[in-house]
């Protein structure tokens, strides 16, 4: 323990002192965070708070994937992007803020779309994945790829005043497909003009995902595995539904029918 203590500088010990004080984290947990590699998918409403909190927490290497540029309509909720970043690549804008909070971490900006052809190779470099995309094709693709590569992940969704999250440890807990089976029909997904989201909902759900990530890395507490946590912020109702692995799940069941990844039709709604 003493030897490991000296791996941190005085400034780092001070920076992480509120973590180190926690019995469930301590120096050991902080060392785990410093050597962890986390990939954030989406530098938007969910990805922004996740990126800031993981950077602040001292997660040693953080990859962030997104192919968009910052637009003025993002700024109501995507809190890592500022007005003077409009027009800039989101991953670059996110990287700047993360490094400004914590210069000790390494940020890997990945300015690209995740597709069936590249996702497995990209996620393989990471210990944990945070899914914060804005569309079902990506959510199912991330689920299937993470199950195939046995990489634990948090998956989240927001809509209007509602949010939901689950954490998946492939091979041990129910996956997103166990709960939702297949993407909904594209024409049933609320259109951009019908939907919308209260900005702070993105922060609520994103920080739940960030907390799950930090808990997974440090081993603190119990995760949202086999559990779908949902909240309705209009009434501040939080609800947990217990899930279980489904024997007939197409990706993690007894006889998986999905053997290769495919790209579903994109029905992105910019919320």
């Amino acid at each position, binding site marked *: 323990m003493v030897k490991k203590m000296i791996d941190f500088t005085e400034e780092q010990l001070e920076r992480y002192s509120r973590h180190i004080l926690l019995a469930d984290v301590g120096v050991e947990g902080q060392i785990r965070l410093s050597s962890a590699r986390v990939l954030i998918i*989406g530098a*938007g*409403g*969910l*990805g922004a708070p996740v990126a800031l909190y993981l950077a602040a927490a001292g997660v040693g290497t953080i990859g962030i994937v997104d192919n*968009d540029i910052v637009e003025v309509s*993002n700024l109501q909720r*995507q809190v890592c992007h500022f007005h003077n970043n409009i027009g800039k690549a989101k991953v670059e804008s996110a990287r700047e803020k993360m490094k400004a909070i914590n210069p000790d971490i390494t940020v890997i900006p990945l300015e690209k779309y995740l597709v069936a052809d590249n996702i497995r190779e990209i996620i393989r470099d990471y210990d944990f994945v945070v*899914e*914060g*995309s*804005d*569309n*079902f094709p990506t*959510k199912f693709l991330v689920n299937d790829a993470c199950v195939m590569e046995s990489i634990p992940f948090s998956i*989240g*969704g*927001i*809509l209007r005043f*509602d*949010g*939901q999250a689950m954490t998946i440890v492939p091979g041990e807990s129910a996956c997103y497909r*166990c*709960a*939702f*089976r*297949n993407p*909904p*029909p594209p024409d*049933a*997904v*609320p259109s951009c003009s019908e*939907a919308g*989201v209260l900005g702070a909902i*993105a922060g609520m759900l994103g920080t739940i995902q960030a907390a799950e990530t930090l808990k997974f890395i440090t081993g603190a507490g119990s995760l949202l595995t086999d559990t*779908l946590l*949902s909240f309705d912020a209009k009434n501040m109702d939080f*609800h947990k*539904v*217990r*899930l*279980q692995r*489904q024997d007939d799940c197409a990706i993690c069941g007894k006889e998986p029918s999905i053997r290769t990844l495919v790209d579903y039709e994109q*029905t992105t*709604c*910019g*919320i």
Partner: protein
Amino acid sequence: MHITVNGENKEFDTSSLPITTLLEVAKVESPDMVSVQVNGKVIDRTLYADTLLRDNDEVDFLYFMGGGA
């Protein structure tokens, strides 16, 4: 019969009920955006009309939420 929906007790004057009817009674606006779990088993969406709920079943509606950006 008595079933629970997302933890809430519901009574029905019938001995069985298709999932599609429960979705209507529960005023689920967009049934395509809901995954239905009955006693821990997630039901294929194409089988909602043919799956009958019985007394003491525990039903959970899992709502699809696709936003994130």
